[in-house]
């Protein structure tokens, strides 16, 4: 059995499996941010004027804002003038109509990542997974559209939705995360280039799991996805988001915004498996991931769940939240975050209970190794009208080695005396006795660590759709690879 020092040293040796760069000519704006850049992005996207004005309004407000410093993360400040805000793979003026028209190198990249689009299409009837692949900033391939169209589901790049469904976009965009919400969200509003739009009409159960793969691939290009999902009354959708990024030396900024709107009796399940490049063992390179994700249970009996498996990024700043406005609405947050080497993560959730009999559950599992630091930051707020609201919170941290850290910052605000809150938190070190037990049964030390860690995460993995659970297991294994020399 290895000592803590050995485990720690060995964990540092893992290499990033998706670390390759695809050589594709990019149509990239020069670095810098001003109103002209925003006008340019808006023009490239052929946006209507209201959209441009919305962006400019956000930008003007952003100029007055300061980058937040309250998170327990430490990094070199980003020079926002040194970033290019638009990069698109070169393609024909009209988007490709089929996968055959997609740049073969792009497809190759996806295949290296184990995302065979052709197979996805071929297997349509089997896996029922639709892929709206976002490569850098422009969606280049959208499949399974016809099946969704039949059901009345709209699933398209948000840039397309702005042109084709302006009324829906106007009604809901920014209604959950307003332009002025926070520094990173305001920046996203000003410069977002693409992302996904989903609308599930009244009473419709989306016929397949929806999935989008994001991937950063252009040097020094900030990524500003914008996702908007609306489940109309009685609708249901399960949305999967996954991403990996190629190896880089420069820090790359990622400031996405995801808005979920859930009306009466509707349900959205949103799952993320996130694997942005975390930087090398000294923390050089790696993605800065400042994300605003928020769900608004606007209707009675609305339900939402966030499930996330985070293994990547140098810096993670992310708090998928639920606003429980509707009476009897339900919010759930399930999270596994793995940080190794010099990764820093400050992540958690907010549960804002406004309606009566609202319920929320928070299960957060943090795994730290190397010199990584991880914080759980969670807010549970019971508003004054939240009669009989209930929350259950469980935060477990697992430490591998002596140099890493886990911190828990639970915030609770209760303005209604009938509310019930439960909070449990544990911090444990991976036990020598557990490792020895597994090894005595014939497992190598590395396999033993993987098995114990996967066991620790089980409560969360159980919430993932089957395909993603397998991927999540694999990701955790990759993350802890090299734990035995």
């Amino acid at each position: 059995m290895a000592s803590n020092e050995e485990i720690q040293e060995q964990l540092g040796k893992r290499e990033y499996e998706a670390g390759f760069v695809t050589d594709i000519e990019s149509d990239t704006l020069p670095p810098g941010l001003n109103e002209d850049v925003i006008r340019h992005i808006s023009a490239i996207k052929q946006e209507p004027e209201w959209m441009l004005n919305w962006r400019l309004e956000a930008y003007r407000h952003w100029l007055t804002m300061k980058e937040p410093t309250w998170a327990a993360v430490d990094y070199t400040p980003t020079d926002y003038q040194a970033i290019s805000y638009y990069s698109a793979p070169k393609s024909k003026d009209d988007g490709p109509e089929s996968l055959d028209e997609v740049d073969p190198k792009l497809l190759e990249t996806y295949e290296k990542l184990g995302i065979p689009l052709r197979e996805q299409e071929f297997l349509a009837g089997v896996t029922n997974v639709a892929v709206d692949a976002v490569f850098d900033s422009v969606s280049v391939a959208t499949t399974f559209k016809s099946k969704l169209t039949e059901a009345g589901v709209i699933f398209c790049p948000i840039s397309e939705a702005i042109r084709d469904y302006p009324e829906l976009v106007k009604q809901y965009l920014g209604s959950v995360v307003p332009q002025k919400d926070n520094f990173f969200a305001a920046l996203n509003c000003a410069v977002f280039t693409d992302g996904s739009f989903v609308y599930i009409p009244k009473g419709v159960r989306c016929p397949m799991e929806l999935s989008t793969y994001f991937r950063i691939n252009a040097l020094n290009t900030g990524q500003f996805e914008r996702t908007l999902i609306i489940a109309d009354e009685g609708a249901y959708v399960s949305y999967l988001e996954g991403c990996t990024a190629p190896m880089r030396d420069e820090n790359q900024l990622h400031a996405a915004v995801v808005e979920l709107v859930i009306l009466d009796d509707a349900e959205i399940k949103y799952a993320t498996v996130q694997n942005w490049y975390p930087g090398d063992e000294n923390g050089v390179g790696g993605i800065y991931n400042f994300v605003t994700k928020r769900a608004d249970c606007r209707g009675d009996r609305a339900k939402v769940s966030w499930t996330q498996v985070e293994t990547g990024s140098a810096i993670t700043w992310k708090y998928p939240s639920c606003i429980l406005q509707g009476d009897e609405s339900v919010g759930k947050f399930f999270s596994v975050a793995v940080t190794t080497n010099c990764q820093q993560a400050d992540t958690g959730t907010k549960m804002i209970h406004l309606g009566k009999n609202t319920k929320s559950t928070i299960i957060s599992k943090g795994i730290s190794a190397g010199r990584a630091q991880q914080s759980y930051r969670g807010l549970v707020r019971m508003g004054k009208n939240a009669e009989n609201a209930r929350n259950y919170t469980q935060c477990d941290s697992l430490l591998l080695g002596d140099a890493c850290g886990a911190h828990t910052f639970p915030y609770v605000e209760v303005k209604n005396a009938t509310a019930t809150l439960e909070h449990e938190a544990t911090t444990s070190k991976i036990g020598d006795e557990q490792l020895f037990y597994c090894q005595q049964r014939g497992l190598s030390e590395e396999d033993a660590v993987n098995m114990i860690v996967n066991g620790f995460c089980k409560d969360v993995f159980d919430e993932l759709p089957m395909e993603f659970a397998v991927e999540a297991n694999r990701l955790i294994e990759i993350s802890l690879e090299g734990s035995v020399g």
Partner: protein
Amino acid sequence: MLVIKDLHVSVGGKEILKGLNLTINAGEVHAIMGPNGAGKSTLSNVIAGHDGYEVTSGSLTYKGEDLLAMKPEERAWAGVFLAFQYPVEIPGVNNTYLLKAGVNAKRKHQGLTELDAFDFMSVVKEKAKLVELDASFLSRSVNEGFSGGEKKRNEIFQMAVLEPDLALLDETDSGLDIDALRIVAGGINKLRSPDRAIVMITHYQRLLDYIEPDFVHVLAEGKIQKTGDKSLALKLEEHGYDWVKENL
């Protein structure tokens, strides 16, 4: 099968085993008895490869190989099995899944094809009957929420599945009620074989009423003080360990 020569072992600078000699052959059942703190668990942990023990001198030769040069999992692949005194809980890890990984790691090492889930389950169901282990235990997390007796039964069940050549049973009888003891002992008896050596560490003669040993050793003050047949255990029961000490 196992030859231990002049074994000295320290824990945290304190010498626990002080020149222990023991030879175990295939087909034999040995019982090691002795007072608390005599070094019984230390011996089984050292054989299995726990790194919390420092071997300061002496040798452990297993099937002609230097056991001390092998990692714990390599010892397991070579057929060494330890039924733990205090089986550890591993939350979220399926009992059967752990066992399948262990069996297949061993098979891979032996150049055999790995068992698929279907074949493995049929092995597991058959072996579970040996210790009357309910099928529900198979899908539960390793030892999590098991009673003391269930944990011990689970250990013998694992032994049955892993089919070791050398099985070390560290106080497998402690914490068992009479019925559970009968079941566990019955399982162990069924696992006796001319190719397999079993070493039972125990405080009590009562286990030996069920499993008749070929040899009984008294371990005290870091050495095997006395070796005899099963009648030695009866004498111990009658006179206590002080009798051994007086006769040193």
